[in-house]
């Protein structure tokens, strides 16, 4: 018997997002694009409210039967809450940076914030999924919004290409996932994650094994782990930069959290079966992400490869299949999100002589001479991405490797660490371009006069929003972040523990 009162209370944040999304859709329909900014602000407020609604569950480390809604379809536990906090915060950031970028080309439309809102709703459902059905609904809601977002610059060929490519490959991945889910259902006799777990305790039949592999393959596409990463550089490059910043942060968190939940809650009793897949994907992602980035001349493509590289490290945490490994994943994500957002915000703040967005690596040359504050922030972000102490990015890698060592995956840890040196190469290359090279004439850095020189007072306000995001992100990943290690580790530990309750 479903207790609707409790269930509805547990999904209050999602209901809030859904209702505000629908209302704002009406506002957009009647108000037109003039209402775009107002809708953005309203969407941000809705996300912010949802953020505070979720907070108690994370803060209290709530989990267990009290947090299960609709007879197991939906789990509002601390793990889901932890991921939701990051998702909502990243979505707000994506809303903040978009207007000044899109307004330049006159493509800021009221649909943008609504799509972000629905995407965030889809992600919230994904990470709370207690059943394969909920999982798929959330995933598709997120993905369909994301396809449209990628193609948001209708008149731009690259953006349209990105949207189409994302859609075709995403549909393929959804197909693979569905196929895996149906196999799993066929052999487990249930779609509930807890039920699948029970059915697999005594061993894995060949059919269920195929189901597991296909499910993981579909999810690997969503987190853009090697060998399912091919779409990432193209989509990241083609999509409008604020959208890329969004893709690299919120959906990544959601997909990783979903993967962890499926791997541990549904397939947790057969960890040895999927560990080899995850280990392979982790190492391949680290290496391909690092090698692929070296030759890139476009910063967005470079950051795309960097995100592939980072997913590899996150998967090392998953490969442990322990509570500390999952906790390490969450900590890594909590550091990765501000890091990558700050990186993209810095890219957004680059402008060439005409005030157009600049996104080539060479546009950064000599940035430290012309816009030292921006260059120093980006330098901290780059060293943090490379995992060089005392930057906080180091802590993410540290906890992941510590979990791997605790789980006796010494070889994996050693290989992961050794290959991270390849990654360090292109991060320090960015620092080299910014600090060691002379400013090249005619590039972005030379004329960079803040955000949007020709949009007047609004640009100033947006400039402040960019700076605020950049400074907050940079401070979080700077050595000051270490002061938060205890608090962050605690929250992540309790969130991770909620995944292992059923075991």
């Amino acid at each position, binding site marked *: 018997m479903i207790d609707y009162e409790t269930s509805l209370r547990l999904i209050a944040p999602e209901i809030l997002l859904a209702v505000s999304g629908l209302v704002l859709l009406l506002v957009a329909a009647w108000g037109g694009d003039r209402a775009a900014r107002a809708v953005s602000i309203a969407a941000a407020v809705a996300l912010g409210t949802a953020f505070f609604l979720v907070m108690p569950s994370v803060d209290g480390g709530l989990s267990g039967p009290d947090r299960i809604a609709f007879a197991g379809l939906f789990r509002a536990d601390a793990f889901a809450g932890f991921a939701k906090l990051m998702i909502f915060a990243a979505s707000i950031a994506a809303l903040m940076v978009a207007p000044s970028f899109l307004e330049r080309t006159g493509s800021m439309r009221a649909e943008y914030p609504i799509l972000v809102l629905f995407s965030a709703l889809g992600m919230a459902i994904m990470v709370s999924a207690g059943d394969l059905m909920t999982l798929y609904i959330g995933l598709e809601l997120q993905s369909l919004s994301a396809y449209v977002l990628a193609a948001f610059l209708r008149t731009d060929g690259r953006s349209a290409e990105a949207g189409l490519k994302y859609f075709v490959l995403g549909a393929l991945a959804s197909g693979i996932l569905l196929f895996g889910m149906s196999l799993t259902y066929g052999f487990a006799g249930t779609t509930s994650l807890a039920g699948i777990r029970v059915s697999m305790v005594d061993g894995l039949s060949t059919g269920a094994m195929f189901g597991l592999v296909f499910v993981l393959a579909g999810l690997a596409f969503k987190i853009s782990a090697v060998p399912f990463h091919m779409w990432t550089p193209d989509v990241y490059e083609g999509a409008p930069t604020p959208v890329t910043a969004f893709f690299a942060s919120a959906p990544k968190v959601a997909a990783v959290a979903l993967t962890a939940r499926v791997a541990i809650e549904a397939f947790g009793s057969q960890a040895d079966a999927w560990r080899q897949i995850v280990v392979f994907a982790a190492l391949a992602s680290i290496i391909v992400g690092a090698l692929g980035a070296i030759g890139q001349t476009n910063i967005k493509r470079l950051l795309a490869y960097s995100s592939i590289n980072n997913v590899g490290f996150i998967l090392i945490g998953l490969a442990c299949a322990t509570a500390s490994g999952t906790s390490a994943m969450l900590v890594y994500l909590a550091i990765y999100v501000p890091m990558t957002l700050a990186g993209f915000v810095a890219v957004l703040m680059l402008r060439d002589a005409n005030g157009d967005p600049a996104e080539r690596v060479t546009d950064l040359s000599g940035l430290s001479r012309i816009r030292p504050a921006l260059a120093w922030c980006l330098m901290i972000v780059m060293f943090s991405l490379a995992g060089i*102490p005392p930057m906080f990015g180091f802590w993410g890698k540290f906890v992941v490797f510590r979990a791997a060592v605790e789980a006796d995956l010494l070889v994996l840890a050693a290989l992961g660490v050794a290959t991270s*040196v390849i990654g360090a190469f292109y991060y320090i290359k960015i620092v080299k371009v910014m600090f060691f090279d002379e400013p090249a004439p005619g590039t972005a850095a030379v004329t960079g006069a803040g955000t949007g020189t020709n949009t007047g007072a609004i640009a100033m306000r947006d400039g402040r929003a960019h700076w605020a995001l950049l400074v907050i992100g940079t401070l979080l990943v700077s050595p000051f972040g270490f002061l938060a290690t205890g608090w962050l580790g605690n929250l992540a530990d309790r969130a991770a523990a909620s995944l292992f309750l059923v075991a």
Partner: protein
Amino acid sequence: MEGFPILSAMLLVPLLGAIACMFVAAPAARTIALAATLLNFLLGIVLWASYDIGGAQWQFTERAAVFAGFEWALGIDGIALMLIVLSVFLMPICILASRSIERRVGEYMAAFLFMETLMIGVFAAQDLFLFYIFFEAGLIPMYLIIGIWGGDNRIYASYKFFLYTLLGSLLMLIAMLWMAEEAGTSSIPALMAYDFDPGAQVWLFLAFFASFAVKMPMWPVHTWLPDAHVQAPTAGSVILAGVLLKMGGYGFIRFSLPMFPEASAQLAWLVFALSMIAVVVTSLIALVQHDMKKLIAYSSVAHMAIVTVGLFAFNVQGLEGAMIVMLSHGLVSGALFLCVGVIYDRLHTREISRYGGLSINMPRYALFFLLFTMASIGLPGTSGFVGEFLALAGIYQVSSWVALVCTTGIILGAAYMLYLYRRVAFGLQRNEDAAAMKDLSPREYVMLAPIAAAVLWMGVYPESFLAPMRQDIQRLDERLARAAPEGDARLAVGRLAPAPTQAPAEGAH
């Protein structure tokens, strides 16, 4: 001094200075940097003065549980004390030597001050991971110093420096994680007393070795050093040679030896072999260099090889000698780089053949240069002699062959240093512009004179420097006793070496 967190203060002063330097104009940045380093030097003197020789093993300890997974734990023993004093002594001199830097002075000073914080942190950290953070973070300022203010080929040198050292340290990180997991603590003093399984020790030793050997640097992973030295600005070279290389030696004496005594004994042959090759090969390479900085860089590799053989001699003389060589090399090679910097600032070339006969127009400079040359060779009365004599005496008890080969390094050292000196300071004045160079300015006096005094002090009365370390080295020797290899020499000497200055010379000088 009770209760005053002097180590934290020493970390904080340069850090605040660094932040201040970022926001001010060039002259103010120079003043702030000098003031911060001098203040830290004063704190260093206070630290030395209030260090209780023969007291507790770990003094000035501080603890604060502000992080998860590791602690803010500081504390020093005599070994760390000496290396901290060396760092804070060299820093004001480095700042003075940076007068020729005119581009981006604020950022330059900030990088140096940040570097000072990290160096002190490395020597003062009492938690494994805190140590790692300080150790590894040094890459960032050094990368910037070489890359922004370096010579023509600075990009290549900075990449090489960064990636080489990073790869080495990361393997050490995995070993550290395993150790903390196995021993259940990340406290360095606790780990120094923890007995790891000898089988595991070998792997741990190799992982730490990968890091420290690169940092040291030992042959054949030394190739980043000449590049980095040649391209770095003068003060960068001084810090690199004076302090950063000591981190490798400090790592061996703090981690490898006490934590993995069995593995150290088992793999001592490896260290000896690499060191013997290094002494001979890099000395020969130094002999044919045309670039002064490169020559001194190669001589550094040779000197650090003496340090490693001394450390792995497993006896008191060897360990004491290795420490003194480290301190002495920090002073002497730093001073030699300063000497190169003095004439480089005037002529803007490091090419040896462009100079000649400098003792005619720069007699005072030639005098200082001669003193440091002799100290580098290891002439009795200078610091170099004490360290090398002790280290070689230590290794002689273990293996006559290693001692023999390493001693040839000293002969070769005399050859390349004297050859360098002859070409630069003696002979005819071949170039007019070199002949027209002015003698030392007051600023340069202030830079070189304190180092000269320290070199002589350490040469004449090394007891001042040995006394704080004696007890710690004794403890280390006791810890190593169970694994110490049997020597091929049957020496009938007591545990303590006779006063080195009165001992008969090794025949190498």
